[in-house]
């Protein structure tokens, strides 16, 4: 479990108010806070091995976001490669600053004295005030290590959304949307699930944020791509990936970083981290194979893009489960993830007709949903005593909790995104004009080209010899 707060396991799952759940989003959101357990006895001393592991994990999660930029960037047309990479790269800057100043205290500030207790934490940690020299409760790492590990999560979540609206949005609207979304959707969500004061002990398990991060971003992406509309020519003109090696590079960096994402979420270098690491590799590997075999059977060709997509599907699905399941269930989770996500992007999307450009929903939304359910099936206290037993280990309560959590995430993601979209669009147009879309956003929005060169001559062709503004 990602954030082990001090406290004793209270296995009782509150399932009574299932109906009231649908009456109020607010209530539901509060209910998402999982039960928190003390994974380690509280020893208020920094352990160098645990700290080394969490710090390097933070670095690993960091590299995922630029990696995502390449994963996405290779899939768009070359006229939009920079804007797509920028959507991931710039967010690292934007959201890290937001996190340090505001986000961390909103998410992990004290709950009891919080702005809205249960939803938004106390603001007394604004600018990370008071975090220096502290040890994060229930762990043996400095709070600052926890702050920065968490920062990387806050960064990648909105970046995932950008795959849904690639090749057609204005940079200004993107900046505004991402800032608002992080502040008003992500931070409260993180507080309720991980920073919350045990107000509601629904009992949902989410080891490394599969539920929160992947479902939330996937659903937000889906909502947004429907609101913004399809790319010009989508379904009629060809829109092909311009650089698949770049996409594979992105996938490799994502996979690499995901070890920090999942195994780092143990917040220590121990048996649990090792177990989560194995589960991560098991699911990613199996999903790679299963996606490739699915398309091999269906289209007659095993593709490289399929392998790159498959591993991400597996990684997404194992994220909530990584610290709760044994290796063989992890393999099965990956097997299903590869197949389910393949069908989501290859069949479902075309059937439904929305233009989720780079399949943010198809991979993160669907994969995250499957992973959250699978956690309810295969979680076992044999792997993690601080977790719970899933359906296949004799207890159905966890699965119910997972289902409710999923519904909440879908509601929050879609409603929240809808509102923020409307606000942003009222301030500045979200979508580029048709002429701009044809020209490509790199030139229009950023005044750059990804590859402004001639492969043959090695010169910069096509530039006037008077440089207009050289100050």
């Amino acid at each position, binding site marked *: 479990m990602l954030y082990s707060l001090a406290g004793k396991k209270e296995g009782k799952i509150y399932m009574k108010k299932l109906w009231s759940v649908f009456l109020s989003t607010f209530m539901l959101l509060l209910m998402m806070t999982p039960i928190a357990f003390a994974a380690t006895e509280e020893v208020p001393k920094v352990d160098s091995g645990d700290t080394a592991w969490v710090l390097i994990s933070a670095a690993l999660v960091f590299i995922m976001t630029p990696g995502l930029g390449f994963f996405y960037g290779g899939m768009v047309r070359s006229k939009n490669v920079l804007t797509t990479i920028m959507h991931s790269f710039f967010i690292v800057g934007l959201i890290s600053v937001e996190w340090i100043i505001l986000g961390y205290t909103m998410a992990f500030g004290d709950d009891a004295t919080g702005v809205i207790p249960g939803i938004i934490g106390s603001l007394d940690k604004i600018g990370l005030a008071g975090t220096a020299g502290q040890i994060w409760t229930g762990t043996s790492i400095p709070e600052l290590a926890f702050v920065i590990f968490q920062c990387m999560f806050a960064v990648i979540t909105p970046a995932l959304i950008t795959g849904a609206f690639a090749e057609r949005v204005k940079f200004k609207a993107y900046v505004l949307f991402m800032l608002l979304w992080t502040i008003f959707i992500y931070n409260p969500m993180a507080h309720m699930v991980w920073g919350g004061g045990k107000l509601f002990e629904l009992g949902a398990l989410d080891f490394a944020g599969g539920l929160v991060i992947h479902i939330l971003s996937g659903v937000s992406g889906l909502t947004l791509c429907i609101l913004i509309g399809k790319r010009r020519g989508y379904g009629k003109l060809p829109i092909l990936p311009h650089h698949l090696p770049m996409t594979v590079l992105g996938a490799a960096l994502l996979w690499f970083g995901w070890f920090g994402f999942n195994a780092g979420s143990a917040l220590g270098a121990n048996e649990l981290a090792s177990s989560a690491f194995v589960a991560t590799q098991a699911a990613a590997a199996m999903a790679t194979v299963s996606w490739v075999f699915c398309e091999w059977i269906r289209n007659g060709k095993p593709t490289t893009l399929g392998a790159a997509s498959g591993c991400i599907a597996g990684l997404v699905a194992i994220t909530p489960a990584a610290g709760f399941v044994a290796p063989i269930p992890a393999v099965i989770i990956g097997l299903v993830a590869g197949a389910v996500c393949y069908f989501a992007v290859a069949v479902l999307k075309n059937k439904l007709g929305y233009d989720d450009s780079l399949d943010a929903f198809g991979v993160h939304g669907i994969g995250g949903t499957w992973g959250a359910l699978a956690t309810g099936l295969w979680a076992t206290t044999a792997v993690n005593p601080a977790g719970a037993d899933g359906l296949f280990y004799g207890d159905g309560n966890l699965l119910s909790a997972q289902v409710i959590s999923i519904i909440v995430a879908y509601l929050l993601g879609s409603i929240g995104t809808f509102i923020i979209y409307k606000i942003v669009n009222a301030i500045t147009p979200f979508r580029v004009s048709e002429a701009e879309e044809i020209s490509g956003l790199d030139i229009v929005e950023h005044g*750059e080209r990804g590859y402004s060169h001639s492969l043959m001559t090695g010169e910069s062709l*096509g*530039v006037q010899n008077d440089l207009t*503004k050289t100050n």
Partner: protein
Amino acid sequence: MSKMTKIEIITRANKLEELKSALNSIGVEGMTVSQVYGCGLQKGHKEVYRGREYSINLVPKIKLETVVCDVPVDQVLSVSQKVLCTDQVGDGKIFVYTIDNAMRIRTGTQGTKAITDDEA
């Protein structure tokens, strides 16, 4: 041997698919396309690198070449003009040449028969 004419169409890259379909529909099947940079009335765009601005005045275009004999040149011109015209500067030009001879490499056939594809 009736006259063989080469028609060279320089136009916007994003119009290629439409143009190809339109030409196919009047019986022009064979064609050769290349990527070119155009320069004319159409203005280019500005780029910025580390605060320095550059004017890019070569605009990416495509050049489609086709040699016809049966299909009337005028028809090719009018059909192309219809699908390509956007009324915006930069729609491009069509040039028409007479060619002396043609050969289909596969068969060694020369003259107009070289480009009449029904024999394949």
